[in-house]
């Protein structure tokens, strides 16, 4: 297979390189690949615990951010049949909500994670719900790729964030829907407690947040109201 009988010298010699066997090329690539793999695995193993801790701390901080009066928390798993049970150990791939309690173990609110489509990509938020007063008491964006400086204001704009200090999400008596579905209004036109004032120049991102909250609250709030006793016991278990 090797250029025998071609009558002249190997062409690669013309480029100034010597005649390199395929074996040596494969060996070189293989060795580099092996070393590269090793280095990546070592870095991964070393940084993984720190990265996971960062993520856990970030979520922890977010939970207490959206539940201003809570000082301790307990995770609950939402079962498919709509019941709640306290999380056992560290469970993965289940939908969790976080009940917050004050110093004396009284339930002060529930933090709920929710996701939905934003302007660029999926927006991932967490919000706090006070089941007693039936209001949303806080909202924080966990992850978003909205346009920096415009859509990203859903994370930083203090006026927008103020929308979620006491946003009314009252359920109908049969718990089937919200009495007043959340709606978005233009800046300065808020007239009712269930309206969210949009950010000027970031209407799509503001609407995305509104829709995520509306969809999530319709699904999760009835479950919370039905299982209030489980949640109230939470801390003592």
């Amino acid at each position, binding site marked *: 297979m090797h250029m025998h009988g071609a009558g002249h010298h190997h062409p*690669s010699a013309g*480029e*100034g*390189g010597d005649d*390199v066997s395929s074996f*040596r*090329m494969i060996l*070189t*690539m293989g060795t*580099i*690949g092996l070393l*590269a793999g090793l*280095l*990546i695995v070592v*870095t*991964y193993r070393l*940084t993984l615990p*720190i*990265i996971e801790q*960062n*993520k856990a701390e*970030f979520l922890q901080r977010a939970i207490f951010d959206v539940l201003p009066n809570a000082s301790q928390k307990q995770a609950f798993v939402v079962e498919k049949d709509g019941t709640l049970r306290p999380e056992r150990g560290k469970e993965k791939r289940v939908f969790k909500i976080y009940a917050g309690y004050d110093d004396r173990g009284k339930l002060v609110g529930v933090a709920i994670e929710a996701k939905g489509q934003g302007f660029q990509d999926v927006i991932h938020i967490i919000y706090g719900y006070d089941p007693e007063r039936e209001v949303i008491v806080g909202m924080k964006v966990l*992850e978003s*790729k909205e*346009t*920096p*400086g*415009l859509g990203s204001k859903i994370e930083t704009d203090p006026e927008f964030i103020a929308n979620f200090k006491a946003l009314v999400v009252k359920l109908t008596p049969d718990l089937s829907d919200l009495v007043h579905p959340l709606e978005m209004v233009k800046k300065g036109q808020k007239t009712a407690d269930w309206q969210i004032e949009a950010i000027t*120049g970031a209407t799509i991102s503001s609407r995305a947040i509104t829709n995520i909250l509306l969809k999530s609250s319709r699904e999760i709030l009835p479950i919370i109201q039905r299982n209030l006793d489980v949640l109230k016991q939470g801390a003592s278990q």
Partner: protein
Amino acid sequence: MKMEETTSMDILLKGIWKENPVFVQVLGMCPVLAVTNSVINSIVMGIATTFVLVMSSFFVSLFRKLIPRQVRIASYIMIIATFVTVAEYIIQAVSLEVHKSLGAFISLIVVNCIILGRAEAFASKHPVKEAVMDALGMGAGFTFAVLSLGVVRELLGNGTLAGIPIFGPGFEPWSIMILPGGAFFVLGAWLLFFNWLRERAKKQQERVVV
């Protein structure tokens, strides 16, 4: 000995000014335009790129006699990709928020042509010490360039520097500056400015000679 010191210093400095990868060679435009919407992003991007540049130049130079010509580009890419992955994990461990705001652009350092360009044009032909000096210089030049863009864009587009408000509450942000379009305006303005400086320096030199 004196001679050698000056040359390695020259290698370092040429990347920052005379052969600046962004303002003179106009390379690596993708991250320059995409992530310079804030000062923090620019700094992290600059440091991460410099890290990858230095590490890959070091190894390319170290192995330059062992890597056969025919597979050199593939080998360089593998070395570069490894250090990009390492940089990505480190950034994630240092700060999740910065990692989130840079998003895919950290992984895209792999295709930043400054890095492969330096590996092929310099590191593969020079000893380790010079290769590292060259990489440091180019990295510093790149960081200087992205920071030049980041400062202007964040200041005009958001009224802040590294997140700290500079103008009073009456400032109306010039939003186009943090959108992709603003990147082109600012890059164009800086290119104009640096070329003007260079021209002026050249003319002055000519006058001295005459």
